[in-house]
C-alpha cells in the first residue's frame, strides 16, 4: 500500500465512481446511441485498473478478487449465449430477439440487444481486468516451479 501521492489518491477516489457511472451510461445507452458492451466494458475495467495502479494490486484484488474476475468473464459469455438459447427455446432462430415480444419486434430487438450488450460488457470488463492482473500480478523474475 502506497501512502504518498495524496492528490493522486484523492482524485482517483473521486474518479473511480464517475468512471463506473459513465461506463454504465455507455452500457445501457448503447442500443440507440454510440456505445455498447465493448466500450462500456473497457471503461468499467479502467475504473478497476486505475484503482489498482494507484492503491496497489492487493487493494484492488480485495475489491475484485481474481477468481471473481474469471467467473465474471465466463458468466458474461453465458449471458450472451443464454439469450440466444432463450430465443431458440421460444422457437425462433438463435439470437432472433423478435422472440421476446413477437407482437412488437422493435421492443423485442431493444430488450434482446440490451441483454446481450450487458453480457458483452461483463465479459469485456472481466477480460480487461484479468489481463491487467495477469501482467501486474507477476513479480519480474520467478522460477518456473514456484508459481
Amino acid at each position: 500500500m502506497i501512502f504518498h501521492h495524496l492528490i493522486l489518491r484523492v482524485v482517483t477516489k473521486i474518479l473511480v465512481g464517475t468512471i463506473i457511472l459513465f461506463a454504465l451510461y455507455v452500457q445501457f445507452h448503447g442500443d440507440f446511441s454510440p456505445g455498447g458492451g465493448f466500450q462500456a466494458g473497457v471503461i468499467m475495467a479502467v475504473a478497476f485498473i486505475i484503482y489498482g495502479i494507484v492503491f496497489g494490486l492487493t487493494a484492488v484484488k480485495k475489491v475484485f478478487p481474481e477468481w471473481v474476475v474469471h467467473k465474471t468473464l465466463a458468466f458474461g459469455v453465458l449471458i450472451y449465449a443464454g439469450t440466444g438459447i432463450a430465443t431458440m427455446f421460444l422457437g425462433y432462430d438463435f439470437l432472433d430477439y423478435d422472440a421476446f415480444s413477437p407482437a412488437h419486434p422493435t421492443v423485442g430487438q431493444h430488450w434482446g440487444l440490451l441483454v446481450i450488450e450487458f453480457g458483452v460488457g461483463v465479459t469485456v470488463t472481466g477480460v480487461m481486468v484479468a489481463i491487467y492482473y495477469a501482467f501486474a500480478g507477476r513479480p519480474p523474475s520467478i522460477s518456473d516451479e514456484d508459481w
Partner: protein
Amino acid sequence: MSKLLDLQFLAGHAHYLLFIVLMMTGLFIVVDKTNLVKKIVGLNIFQVSVFMFYVSIGKVTGGTAPIFPMDDKYHVDKEALVGIAYSNPLPHVLILTAIVVGIATTSLGLALIVRIRESFNTIDEEDILHIEQEMTRDDNRKYGNAMGGLA
C-alpha cells in the same frame, strides 16, 4: 494510365498507399527485429493497417455516422432522414471484431513473452535460438545415436 506517374490516381487512392506503407512497416518489423516484444508491436502495426483499410472501404463521401436521428420519444423522425447519406457501417463492425481479436492476440503474445523471459531469461530471438540449438545438441548427445540402425 498514359502518364508514367498519375498523381490524380495516386491522390485518389492515398488511403490505399497509406495502408500499404503501414502494412509493409509492420511486416518489416516482424521479420527484422529480434526482440520479441518489438515483433508484437510490428504485428500490431500490421493489423492496424488492415483495420484502416477496412474503415476506408466503408467511407461514403459526404456520409455521416449511420445512426437514425430520433425525436425525444425515441422514434425515428422520418423527415430528418431525408437526404442523409450514411457511411457503410458493416466494415466498421467487422473491424470492431478484428480489433478485439487483435487485443487478444497481443495480450496472449505478451503473456507468452513473459513466460519465455522467465524460462529463457531473455527476450532476444538470437539468444533464444542459441539456447535452443544447445538444447537440441544435448538431446542428440543423449539420444542421438538412436538411429534405429541405418535407414
